[in-house]
Every structure is written in structure tokens, then in C-alpha cells.
């Protein structure tokens, strides 16, 4: 964690397939926002967005990072992974679309609602992906 007078930055590594630590980054982000006295409505949006992004890295990617910057105006979340990327981004954004395996579905994932959930919670949302390279999700949530 680094902090200057106006903003706070949080950085998390998320490993592929690591369900024992699943949700740790998002839980930690939530705790910090609570300590900062951020409104519970905003905390809920950030929690949902970071959790879904974190689980997508763990489930669908080879591993990645979540970088969060909290300013007096907004929470900015940048999620980047090391591949494999998404072939059809429009399809991935559709509610109900999922490539999750049977094993993953048994754990409760794979409703195909993660990306749509993130978009719903975000004031600014961008999904960029390149097959073979990786996926980047950019999220901004305003504090009021």
C-alpha cells in the first residue's frame, strides 16, 4: 500500500486457480474502504466489481494483478492478466455466457454474470482483450 496526501494505491497479485486465497484481494479492498469511511453503497459496488474481476483472473486466466487507486473523487480499478485473452469480447459480456468447466461450476461459479455484474457496478467500464496476450478491465466508481 502506498499513500500520498490525496490518494491511496493498493496492489494485489492474483494467482491462477488459487481458490484457497479466493476473494482475499476484494475482501481487503472492502476493509480499507470501510476504514476510510466510504459510503456503503459505493463499497458494495467496489466489492462486487473487484470480487468478480478477482475470480475471473483465478478461474479463466494464467494469473494477473489488481491495482486500485482511491482518490477523494473515485475508486479506480485496473485488472490485468497474462492471458489467454478472450476471443469474442461481446459474447463474453452477455449475461449467461460462460466457458467455466463442470468442476468450476460445482463450486458455484459459471453463471456467466461476472462481467455483466462488473459493468452494472461501474460508472466507467472498459474491457480490452487480445487473444494469446491477456485481458485488461478498467473500472471507475465515483464516490458520490
Amino acid at each position, binding site marked *: 500500500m502506498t499513500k500520498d496526501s490525496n490518494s491511496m494505491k493498493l496492489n494485489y497479485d492474483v494467482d491462477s486457480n488459487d*481458490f484457497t486465497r*479466493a476473494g482475499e484481494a476484494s475482501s481487503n479492498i472492502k476493509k480499507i474502504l470501510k476504514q476510510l469511511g466510504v459510503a456503503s453503497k459505493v463499497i*458494495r459496488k467496489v466489492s462486487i466489481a473487484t470480487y468478480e474481476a478477482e475470480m475471473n483472473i483465478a478461474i479463466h486466466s494464467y494469473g494477473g494483478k489488481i491495482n486500485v487507486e482511491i482518490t477523494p473523487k473515485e475508486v479506480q480499478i485496473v485488472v490485468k492478466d497474462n492471458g489467454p485473452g478472450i476471443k469474442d469480447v461481446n459474447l463474453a459480456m452477455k449475461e449467461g455466457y460462460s466457458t467455466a468447466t463442470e468442476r468450476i461450476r460445482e463450486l*458455484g*461459479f459459471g453463471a456467466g*454474470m461476472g462481467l455483466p455484474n462488473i459493468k452494472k457496478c461501474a460508472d466507467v467500464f472498459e474491457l480490452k482483450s487480445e487473444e494469446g496476450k491477456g485481458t485488461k478491465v478498467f473500472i471507475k466508481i465515483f464516490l458520490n
Partner: protein
Amino acid sequence: MELSKVVDELNLEVIAGYNDGKKEVNGAYIGDLLSLVMSKAESNNLWLTIQTHLNVIAVATLVDVSAIIVVENMEIDEDTIKKADSVKVPLLKTKLSAYELASKLAKLGV
């Protein structure tokens, strides 16, 4: 309504993370697909589910449900129990189905 009242009246088994049961309970949500629970469950809801993997604890804390109630007497992973204790999420259990429990909750006025 206080969580302790729900636990007593409906004879729920306390598995972990319970403390004194003073948490407020308001409504319930039934679901086993985590990203649906994330978007639909509201804070202070009871969450009725058959999911018992470690992931349920993160979901419960992120949306602030007042308790997880595992229905159908599903077996709960040891890791889940430990985590519920460490982050203090009440983890409860019943042999009733989600439907049976939900109708009792409704009668109780949850």
C-alpha cells in the same frame, strides 16, 4: 429480528463464526450461483445455499449477509469452517430444504 431468535426458533445448527447472535436479520436470499448471490443478496439477508466451499465466506462478507445457512444437511469443508470463525461470518446448518426453511422464515416474519 436478531439472528439468535432465528437460530432458536428454527433449531439451526451453529457451525462457526456465530459469536452472540446479535446480528440484525432482514429478509433472505436463496442461491447457489455465486455471481447471482453477489448481485442479488442484500446486506442483513440470510443466505440459504447448498454451496459449502471456501468461496462462500468471501461472498458472504462482501455482501454483508447476516448469516450463511447451509441447507439439506450438506457437508461443509473444514477450510470453510475455519475461515468463517476467523472472519466471524455466522455459518449455520439445517437438514431442511431451502423451500422448507424459507417458508418457516416467512412465518417467523424474517
